[in-house]
């Protein structure tokens, strides 16, 4: 008698288990199908919009990578090849030489090269750049705005949620299609305003 009861009990439990299992399975399938419709076939990556960027300097510190995966990019098409470069020299620089005390970049990551009178070309040494945006600010304020911050996709590990995006005061970070992973603002901020 006792044995029979126990068997019945077990069967009932097995039945309940099966019911739950079936409904969880059904729910998962529904969820999967529903989400699949909203999913994207193309991958997206994090990028920042230089038009929104206010050069606060948090890109240098908020990234999970040290140094940050955000680097300064030089859009040569926009560069005026100035001798007095707002991105290269400190505002109070005494003379326009490559001496360390004249440079704005804290890590000396910008290389200045003479091309022809009166033009100079500037290169970003990616290994040294920390993404602090000091030069970006300088270039935007006094020059054409050809120095722009961008996420370097060779370095970015594409976190589920970008920790810089979380800290960005200007909400400049967004996910962009992997096909066009870089955004360059084609004009400087000041002109946009006027």
């Amino acid at each position, binding site marked *: 008698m006792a044995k029979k009861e126990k068997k019945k009990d077990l069967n009932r439990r097995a039945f309940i288990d099966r019911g739950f299992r079936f409904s969880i399975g059904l729910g998962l399938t529904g969820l999967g199908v529903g989400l699949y419709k909203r*999913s994207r076939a193309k991958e997206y990556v994090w990028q920042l919009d230089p038009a929104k960027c206010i050069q606060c300097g948090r890109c240098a510190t908020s990234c999970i990578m040290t140094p940050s995966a955000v680097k300064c*990019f030089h859009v040569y*098409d926009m560069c*005026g090849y*100035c001798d007095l470069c707002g991105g290269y020299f400190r505002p109070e620089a005494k003379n326009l030489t490559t001496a360390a005390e004249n440079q704005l970049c804290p890590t000396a990551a910008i290389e200045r090269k003479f091309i022809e009178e009166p033009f100079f070309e500037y290169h970003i040494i*990616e290994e040294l750049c920390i993404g602090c945006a000091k030069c970006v600010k300088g270039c935007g304020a006094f020059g054409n705005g050809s120095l722009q911050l961008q996420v370097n996709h060779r370095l970015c590990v594409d976190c589920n949620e970008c920790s810089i995006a979380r800290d960005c*005061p200007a909400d400049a970070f967004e996910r962009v299609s992997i096909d066009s992973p870089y955004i360059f603002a084609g*004009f400087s901020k000041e002109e946009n305003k006027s």
Partner: protein
Amino acid sequence: MKKKIATILLLAIISLQVYNIYAIQRFPKPEFESGHTQPPTVTPDPRAQALDILDTFVLVAALSVVTWLVIKKRSRKGVFWMSVFAVLYFGFFREGCICSVGSLQNITLALFNPEYSIPLTAIAFFILPIVYTLFFGRTFCAGVCPLGTLQDIFALKPMSIKTWLEKVLGIIPFIYLGLAILYAATSTDFIICRYDPFVGFFRFDATFMMFSIGGVLLLTGIFIARPYCRFLCPYGALLNLVSRFSKKHITITPTECIQCRLCEDSCPFEAIDKPVLLKEKEERPIAVRRFLMYTIIIPVLILIGGYTGSQFHENLASVNTKVRLANELLNETNYGETEQEAFEITAFKAAGQSKEELYNEVAAIIKKFYIGGWILGGFIGLVFGLTLVSLTIFKYREDYTPNKGTCLSCARCVDYCPVLPEVKTELQ
């Protein structure tokens, strides 16, 4: 025809002018006389998409291998080496992202925010381990999850903790789960990723706070095995519920339990249920009365929880960046900065949104948090109620069996069982 050409010309001129507007620069690009060619702007390519598919493939393969090792081979050694592989691949090689634990936030965000398009890998990482758990128990926890396996390797001298303490701490994952869903659903933050204690180790790069939390968890893990999995992990809370209905599950003994008690203390997670003797069976009326009492208590707890949650909705919402911004603007606190205008406020002014628009937007967000606070509180109340009920339910067991909910399928207990699978064939 002429007209057409004229319009095309006109368009061309207009577009040129548009181009000019954008190309007006303070210092126009020089034309070099020395024939210098301008270097291109270097834009390194992102990681190939194919590797994401590889991740999903590795996940399926690892889940299958661990499940086979746990259910069929019953090999602790195999599971151990698989967990080393998981730490190396999902942890150090893939740098802990994306993981199943965090993917539940992507799922929530995708459900609540139609603008967010979820990556396919996130769906796979969320659903596949649950499917495997539904059929074979928490084999994902045993040897695939990089967070769990990292702690598993550290579980060197496990001690037992009091049952009541374990039950109380066991509620935390559900609260964490509720909070994570609330913040993901309101597009506020991914708190699981933000407070992931081990991802900093995988990347050899952690803030001091996260490094300390992770370090403390790993060191406690030496004595209290896998503390994150048992007392924090929100995905583990989900798997715990699903695993209770799993079709197959690891068993301590390959055939029949001989009540030798050798496995009794083998489980570092205290997930082995001891036999409950039949003579402890209580009178039916008492059990019925208790059942009735709890059916009344649970709705009351849900209401109390919901009300409490809704009272705290403004505190919950203050984490949201927009709510914070509105707060700082209203109170003119400037994010606690005294020397200069806070970057958030500068950016807000530059973006050109009016304060009224922001306040309206924030009011809508706070309303969401009010509803969310009710649901979260009610959910926590429900979890409390169900935990209370589960403490008083006796399941009559004759053998030592793994608790299907809390068992992490690590297969440690298997090595303690003296019963050999061959014995069965000999008897027959």
